[in-house]
């Protein structure tokens, strides 16, 4: 799976949890998941667990804490899946 495929999948997993639907139209790697997309912190946990399930990876707590933007998530996942 290449980076753009990972990106598309990540966006798809985050979309249902985004309270700011307007921000989805201008979503990019730099989009801040909590602030721009207005995903709350509990739902961010759900998203990280969805990453684990869908990409068959394990995300440590510290790694999860480091996910601020969509790009952070894509980078982490790409590193994990090699």
């Amino acid at each position: 799976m290449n980076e753009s495929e990972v990106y598309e999948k990540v966006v798809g997993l985050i979309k249902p949890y985004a309270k700011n639907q307007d921000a989805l139209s201008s979503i990019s790697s730099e989009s801040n998941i909590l602030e721009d997309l207005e995903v709350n912190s509990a739902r961010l946990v759900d998203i990280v667990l969805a990453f684990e399930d869908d990409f068959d990876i394990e995300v440590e707590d510290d790694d999860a804490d480091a996910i601020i933007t969509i790009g952070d998530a894509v980078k982490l996942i790409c590193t994990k899946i090699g």
Partner: protein
Amino acid sequence: MNLQKAMSYCLLLILDPVVRALYYFHFRFSVNGGKTTLKDIREKYAEIRKAHPGPMLICTNHLTYIDSLIQAVILSSTWGYISHLSGLAWNLPERKNFYHKFIYRLICYLGRCIPVERGASPADARQVTNQMLYVLRKKGIISIFPEGKRSRDGLVDDKDFSYGVGQLLNEIPDASVLCVYMRGTKDGGFTHFPKKGESYYMDLSVYKPVSDLKGLRRARDISTQIISRLKEMETNYFGSNGGLAKVH
């Protein structure tokens, strides 16, 4: 935090009667009569603390800004807190609601509060979590609202809730969990401040969540179990006698 804890004890004799005066004479709150009295609840809480003297999370449903204060007044008398210092819980108010005026910040400080911020960055959230863990490692009590917010429809939200309580229990697995279901029996429900003359129903239940999962999945599982327990307690409240008629 040790200084904050010491100051809250020292000023307990001043602050606590003020809170109780507001409770009884300004708001004219009371606990429902019926089968369970204020004395019964306090005895039960004292027994629970005696049986579970270590770290404890008091997990309560959340409907008004002052749930923590009402709960603290109901659970023990001033003398009860003075004679059993460990019974006084730390509280977790939302920063934006209580920290915009100096006097509120002072009261929160003396009232043993750790301010939390909804939507905080992971780093800020971690710092607050570390303060909570410090309290628990010192065998303290934290009063927490597992839903992570006040329930807008007046019922325990078992669909969209926080996993904070599970994350704390991941770190302090031997902490006891005391589920508390509390609501006004007259106008109980979502509101900023309860109406004067409100009468409170309170149910206490020690609960032991069990999970074979690890990490964030365990946090989610444990949080879900605690919310489910609160939901059961709510169902009991609204049970066969039609809710408001069924009082302790």
